[in-house]
């Protein structure tokens, strides 16, 4: 049982670390939103794994709160970025002074 718990925490910790790497690297705001969303899901999975391994149901209501927060956060940031593009004629915000997307630069070069 302890081996299984090490394996579980190792897998979840590795996933969380890699999501943190993407959160730090960016390069854009939407990358960070996606990474935060995934990180919160991984955190709730980790809480559920802890509850299952220890047979400890006290963290179960926390799961509901975490999943609610993940949804509200990602939707509000997506709406914020969409609001920045609202007056843009070209549609991508390049005429409003927003930087060129890193994916565009990579596709060209």
């Amino acid at each position, binding site marked *: 049982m302890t081996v299984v718990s090490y394996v579980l925490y190792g897998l979840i910790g590795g996933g969380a670390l890699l*999501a943190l790497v993407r959160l730090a690297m960016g390069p854009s705001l*939407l990358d960070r939103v996606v990474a935060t969303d995934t990180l919160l899901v991984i955190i709730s999975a980790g809480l559920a794994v802890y509850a299952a391994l220890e047979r400890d149901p006290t963290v179960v209501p926390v799961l509901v709160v975490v999943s609610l927060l993940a949804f509200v956060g990602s939707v509000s940031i997506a709406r914020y970025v969409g609001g920045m593009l609202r007056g843009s004629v070209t549609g991508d915000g390049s005429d409003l002074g927003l930087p060129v997307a890193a994916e565009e630069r990579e596709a060209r070069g």
Partner: protein
Amino acid sequence: MSAVLDVVSMTCLVAGAFLCLTAGLGLVRFPDVLSRMHAGTKPQVLGVLLVMVGAALRLQGWSNAWMLLLVAAFQMLTAPVSAHMISRVAYRRRHVRRDLLLVDEFGAAPAGDRLYVGDEPGDAPPEEPEIAIAEHVVDDRGPGDGAPRR
């Protein structure tokens, strides 16, 4: 009976945790926002479902099982909504590796779309109704013709 339940729940938990690791790997290795979303949403539905099933089998009592079921149902309801909004904004903001796309049905539209900005409610009427109707009826102007009107 209890041992069988433990084995089943541990299998579900390991599968869900493995999906969490694959999500992290995909987030780091994939090239643009849309493909990173593809990787990141793997644990959002299947991973969370597996982990919740495993935890509900391990925890005794129906109240815990109902609360875990609530979490799973909430994830399945909210994941498509947030994914749709993020991907819509990401496409408009050009966070797409266009050279890696096989099909880009949206790219033929001239200069983005004039009619929908992407963050209005789904049943919102078009902002410029005559263009909306004209684009459905008359389609012979070519893609680069119409200058953006806003």
